[in-house]
């Protein structure tokens, strides 16, 4: 079972990963966007860390709902509402259980990803975060490691795509040949989920 500590560790690992990779994310966003994805994610996850510390939520669902709300309130841009919705909807789907199964998380995460699709109107192949999230959540039914690999492969697969959503779509064909920053951060988010699982298991 995955308890509240597991979800805190995940968020902490995500914050650390985003910190570490911020420059790379911004660099990717320079090529086909506006050079802020790294600092957006950094600002958001720093705020998540702070609010989790301060409000000390007691269930997996509460952790993710709070984290999502905080992203919405601090990130802005396209990624703020989208990542905020991802975590909030995932958290809502987890309800108020004190601990959840791998299977429950996989299902809840799937509903979070679906909400991202609905909110942003993007589909697989549009060169967005969904290109990492969709394969990632699909493989989550198999294993965390498989999810990580699938998400990473999904992010890499955005390189040859022409963007059809978000800022990169303004570039038309010039968006081809660059990896999507949001897909890259989504792969990070799923990698830190796998990492949290491998490092400490479900915590119980």
């Amino acid at each position: 079972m995955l308890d509240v500590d597991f979800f805190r560790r995940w968020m902490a690992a995500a914050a650390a990963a985003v910190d570490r990779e911020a420059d790379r994310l911004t660099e990717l966003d320079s090529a086909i966007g506006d050079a802020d994805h790294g600092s957006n994610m950094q600002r958001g996850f720093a705020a998540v860390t702070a609010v989790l510390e301060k409000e000390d939520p007691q269930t997996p669902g509460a952790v993710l709902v709070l984290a999502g709300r905080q992203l919405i309130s601090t990130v802005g841009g396209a990624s703020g509402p989208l990542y905020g919705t991802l975590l909030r909807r995932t958290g809502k789907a987890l309800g108020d259980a004190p601990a959840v199964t791998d299977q429950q998380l996989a299902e809840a995460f799937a509903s979070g990803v679906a909400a991202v699709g609905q909110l942003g109107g993007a589909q697989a192949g549009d060169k967005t975060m969904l290109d990492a999230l969709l394969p990632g959540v699909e493989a989550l039914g198999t294993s965390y490691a498989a999810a990580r690999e699938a998400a990473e492969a999904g992010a890499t697969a955005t390189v040859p795509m022409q963007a059809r959503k978000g800022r990169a779509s303004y570039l038309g064909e010039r968006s081809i040949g660059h990896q999507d920053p949001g897909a890259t951060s989504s792969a990070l988010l799923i990698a830190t989920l796998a990492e949290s699982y491998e490092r400490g298991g479900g915590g119980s």
Partner: protein
Amino acid sequence: MRMLINVPETVVADALRGIAAAHPELTVDVDNRVVVRRDAPVAGKVGLVSGGGSGHEPLHAGFVGPGMLSAACPGEVFTSPVPDQMVRAAAAVDSGAGVLFVVKNYTGDVLNFEMAAELAEDEGVQIAKVLVNDDVAVTDSLFTAGRRGTGATLFVEKIAGAAAEEGAPLERVEAIGRRVNEASRSFGVALSSVTTPAKGSPTFDLPPGELELGIGIHGEPGRERRPMMTSGEIADFAVDAILEDLRPDNPVLLLVNGMGATPLLELYGFNAEVQRVLSERHVVVARTLVGNYVTSLDMAGCSVTLCQVDEELLRLWDAPVETPALRWGR
């Protein structure tokens, strides 16, 4: 880095403190990042709220005041604001007559304003929205995020603001805002890249002697790169790009806008060329505005915006306005 800043993290907050000090006629909530005209809410008047990433100054905070915006919500540099800001702004300016959100068409702005609209309506504020999408450099199709909002934002905010000031009800202010947007088109050109405080180096690489055609206002690269062109050639290119999409029978408002680092001397010279092209194309210019209004930090370059106007829109354009950046009439 050639920036006049303390640290990148406080750029927006520092600017808001500076706006507060320079403009006693505005109420500036630095912590929550909301700039409101001091006398808001004005009884019976529809509120106008806009906002977007910072780095486009004077847009939007410089357009807050009688005859234009009721409040502005500045986000981080080139990052749309968060819903909490718009909700707070809406609450501050709503007199009961409702609030119009003026939203530039970027995924981030659209999503954040949408969330804000839901939350504000939950709090009992009636919300309408106008989406600004005037940039002809972007194909407006299902396969893009749609045209970007750029220079027309100024026209929408000024003209809808004048309608609100006259006491028009929310649906009318919204309809006028829509009409202005539909009658407006823009095209932008970069002669240099842009450097954000957070990144500290140019967003894209533009060697001297080349320019980017069809850029946005966030340092996104344009659609095409070319060898340097003269001011006259750029005017031909920009105006023709616009006229492909908008064939005005009526007179137009013309905005010759600087991206931030282009000297006013050059901008006026460019205006002469734009006027030449328009007259060659038999487009009548009713009013001209030249200056740095919808900027992109330290980018060198310019954009042209046309807005086709009828008598009503022209009257509302001419109506008094009293903001830090636009001010006329009596």
